[in-house]
């Protein structure tokens, strides 16, 4: 009976030693935070904002679990470690998807820029072909001014591309393309008007 009591007391201390002195998974915490930070820096806040938010939430949940365990007498960080490992893996996976998303947005912006350039060039070429004379001079001057205005706006596309604002660049380019197409249409109508007069 005496031995049993001794055994129980020793067992209790042994368990206490291995559980209450379990340390926070500091390395895992730091690694996970670094992985989430790296995904953010890669551009997840722009190209995968919802996924990044989920990642941050999962990280908070894992840290809450650590805080809970930290306050317990018998600390068990196994679940928290698993959660951290999952967040880290998810962060790395998310980071890996960003370059492709960024590239797709960049390509879309570059295509929009080329299309806007083509629309501007087409309008200019049309204007060059327009019959010049006293009857058309005023219209030509007006369209030239319109196209100059669009040309002035065109560098905004490149400026947006340079600061990696691909969505902004696409938007500006699409607008210039639409306006240039509108001017082309007006030039065509003016040419038709002159033809009709002859």
């Amino acid at each position, binding site marked *: 009976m005496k031995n049993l009591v001794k055994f129980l007391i020793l067992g209790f201390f042994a368990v206490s030693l291995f559980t209450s002195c379990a340390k926070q998974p500091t390395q895992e915490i730091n690694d996970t935070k670094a992985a989430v930070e790296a995904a953010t820096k890669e551009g997840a806040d722009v190209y995968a904002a*919802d996924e990044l*938010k989920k990642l941050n*939430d999962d990280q908070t949940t894992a840290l*809450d679990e650590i*805080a*809970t*365990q*930290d*306050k*317990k007498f018998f600390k068990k960080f196994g679940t928290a470690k698993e959660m951290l490992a999952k967040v880290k893996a998810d962060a790395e996976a998310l980071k890996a998807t960003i370059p492709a998303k960024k590239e797709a947005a960049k390509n879309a912006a570059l295509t929009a820029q080329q299309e806007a350039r083509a629309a501007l060039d087409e309008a200019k070429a049309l204007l060059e072909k327009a019959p010049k004379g*006293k*009857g*058309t*001079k*005023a*219209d030509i*001057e*007006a369209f*030239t*001014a*319109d*196209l*100059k*205005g*669009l040309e*002035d*706006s065109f560098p905004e596309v490149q400026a947006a591309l340079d600061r990696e604002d691909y969505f*902004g660049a696409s*938007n*500006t380019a699409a*607008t*210039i393309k*639409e*306006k240039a197409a509108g001017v082309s249409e007006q030039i065509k109508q003016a040419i038709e008007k002159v033809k009709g*007069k002859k």
Partner: protein
Amino acid sequence: MKLKTVRIFVLTGLLVAAVSCQTPPVPPEVEQAKDQENELWRAGAPVYATQQYIRYLSSLRLAKGKLIKEKAKFGWFRDYKEVQAEFQAVLKRGQTVLQSVQEEKALKSRNLTEQLEALRERTQRIWKLILTVNETQLVRRSLAQAEVAMMETEVLLDKKKYADLSRKIALIQFHLSQAEEAVFSILERYADEVQVETWRRWAMETISESRKKGTTAILITKLERTLTVYREGKVAATYNIGLGKYGLSDKLHAGDEATPEGRYKVIKKLPQSRFYKALLIDYPNDEDKKEFSQAKKRGLIPRRAGIGGLIEIHGGGEDSLTGGCIAVEDGVMDKLFSGVSIGTPVTIIGSLESVAELLASLK
């Protein structure tokens, strides 16, 4: 038997204790708060209700802290009542934040939409003002830039990107201001009451002379782009005209592509002209020569520039862009040619009405 009863009693007691001391479940408000935080983030609380959101997050952290503390206790000793109350308060606060976000967004959207509407009206006013003006290159250039930015705002408004939208609105305002500056520089003279009064006087004198002498007279109004024929002081006909690139300016020297202002006479009728038929007027008159000489002395015109001449009313069409002459449709030219004789007064004025009010509306 007695021992058996005691055993049953103890076991039942233990069972009841075990059941009653079960670990209580985490209150549902905890999960609801998590969902709410996500909803707030998606709604844009960090942007549209920053301070409130920070306070909300701080209260959420406190509640979580209490939850963690409670969770750390042995299951039998956990009591989530306080935690539940804390999370209920957080949910209530979150609801208020969400409402603020929605109100702020609605207000922002309304304000920006109103601003955009005002800018659209401003653009239309500029277009209205420049419809009869040829020297609009600078204006149209700025308007084209403003319109590009204006079209972009539609996408931004749709995507609720209000910060980007505000930047675009500032850009539109800049381009419109430039356009307005250009309009002002062209039309300033047309808002000068003394100048407009002089033009009115010339017009009245011309009409009065036509009435008194029973003759034909021509009044050309540059801003309205009209040529009116008066017979015995009464309007016989009004036609549309075309002017030069800088037609609204008063002619000062050769090559300035401006149309002169003053009281002239038809001095030659040309049945065959480069532009169908033409009526040559006596520009420069004595007043023009005086102005030319003064402008030259003040260095307002190039030293080698001559005063110019050969200002005509000719055919070719009202949509012509002349070098300073007045163009009309060929059919109109036929009527003028037959109805006008050498010596017919031709008075060219800027406008009978001041544009001061119109220009003021741009400000």
